[in-house]
């Protein structure tokens, strides 16, 4: 399993933008556009900072732990809403937790 998964059915490649946000923000310069979709160059080089995940306007990017570190399927989905960020955590057994955090004054 990869460190980030880019769901290509949701990714639009942000056509028309000079640089899609995921490409622009990755601190490791790891994301690039090929055939109008985002790709990660080398999944192992991701630090898990989630800058791309948080910035994607289509919710097309998801952080996944490599199998070595987390072998059950779980999800952690952040959504920025104005001055807060809402995190949805889904455990491997289907349990769900939602967290809200303030991010700006």
């Amino acid at each position, binding site marked *: 399993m*990869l*460190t980030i998964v880019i769901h290509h059915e949701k990714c639009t490649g942000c056509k028309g933008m000079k640089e899609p946000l995921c490409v*622009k*923000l*990755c*601190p*490791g*310069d790891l994301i690039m556009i090929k055939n109008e979709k985002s790709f990660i*160059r080398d*999944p*192992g*080089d*991701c*630090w*898990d*900072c*989630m*800058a791309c995940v948080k*910035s994607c306007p289509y919710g097309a990017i998801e*952080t*996944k*732990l*490599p*199998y*070595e*570190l*987390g*072998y*059950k*399927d*779980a*999800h*952690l989905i*952040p959504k920025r809403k104005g001055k807060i*960020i809402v*995190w949805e*955590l*889904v*455990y*491997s*057994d289907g349990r769900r*937790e939602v*967290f809200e*955090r*303030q*991010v*700006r*004054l």
Partner: protein
Amino acid sequence: MEIDTDLLIIGGGTAGCLAAVEAKELDPDLKVTILEKAHIERSGCLAGGINAINVYIHEGESPESYVRWARWYAMGLLREDLALTMAREINKAIEKVEKWGLPIPKDDKGRYLRRGRWGIHVFGESIKPILAKAVKNAEVDVYNRVVVTNLLTKREKVIGAVGFGVRNGDFYLVRAKATIVATGGAAGLYKPKNDGEAHHKIWYSPFNTGTGYAVGIRAGAEMTSFEMRFNAIRIKDVNAPIGTIAVGFNAPVINSKGEKFMQKNYAHLGGEAAPTPLRVHGPMEEIRNGRGPCYIDTRRLNDKDLRRLKEEYLDEYPTLVLYLASNGIDLKNRFLEIYGTDPYIVGGHCNAGYWINTDRSTTLEGLYAIGDVAGGASSKFVGGCFAEGIIAARAAVDYICNKNALEEVDPELVDKERYRTFAPLWRYKEGRHGPTPKEMELRLQKVMDEYVGGVHQFYLITEKGLEIAKIEIKALKEQAENLIARDLHELMLAHELIDRLDVAEVLIHHLLYRKETRWPGFQDRVEYPHLDDKNWLVFVNSRKNPKTGEIEVFTRPYEQIVPGDRYNP
């Protein structure tokens, strides 16, 4: 691309952003330029966010009491002048960032909420975008995706820097009246704990690769205390910080027998709150002696605590939360394991970095160093990095106003630097053969781990190992002359590797020189296992002669400014 600027800041991170804004506030007419390898909105250590600002001078404390604590935390050896000047600026710096939009929770009296003796809680998920916005509002010229590869010097004076655009492939030649280096510390020197696809799940930012140290080393700047490595104790596998649980929730660490070994073995040194090197040494010794695994005991935490714990990690290190869910871990009936990380060189946690004056000027005229790249004052963390940015900006602006001229750059030097910057790419285009950055990275990390006290060796350092490593690194440096890069991204990786080789070489020299063990857990010298104040209460410094390439290692005296027992906080 040629840029002329008054003040150049290399690295738009925690310290660099504060310096940039301060300089513009002091003199709005100054041209201030940031060169940033990534994009300042999400670059460096703060990319994922933070949940606390460590080091705030709370009511009842003072810069002096901070120095007493930080000195003890660094096992009695600290640049007290640097720590004092920093501590005097920290609170103002934090209040400033709060005004820029950082939410900081307060108690009913309007005071920041404490986290431990020296920290405050913050809602810091967006701290980096907040700093970036302040930089933008201050009308600083920011060049994102420009990787700095070297300083430009003229007669021991820094007159600018060079680099390349990782997007446009341009060569950047920047002439500056003063330069501040703020590129953070060095990760990726050592073999990490995780393999393959997880190799970058390390604690420190894998994209901070010691460039700031390396450019200074190559230019002949004096460095200090590289031997005080930072080996962190972290949540095993994901390498998440443990302060959130240990300090935030007062949770003790235990070994496989359930013993609170820190309280048992290190009571006289602070127990659970002992200096960080001992908090690494403690668990690693338990594990090495067959009493592992070690855990952080969350038994006392109730449901509300556990929820808050997850919330705090989401602000700083969300992977930990995903890790819990991906492994079905319920903290009520399973503890988190702790383990040491790969070693880093980080001036914000340890004393390693540029040897600087109180105004943050380095030994090279025109060059200032701040944040994780600056040495001497460990335990600065985010608050201290902010403060150093402000202090250096003041000095640099002063310097610019007094000596107001850009220097001519010798065209031969420009050609040389352009070649040096692009050589790996050109070699590839010419069809030459050579190692790739990733191949060399694995070799470097293996050598460092096996011979220079990596985590897989329980950090133990032997004289013989260091001697072997010296030879191996020299060979790698020769090999680096053949490095190839297939595209601009790989060219960046090539320079990261070259920089780490320079840092590794200096690190080995420092480790060899200090013949005592001052920081068990960080610097375990097997042949010299004890702390020796009689001979080694000094800073170990080095300077690479830019002409001969020889590394000279020597000592500088320690000066006690704040009275009191150095081994007592």
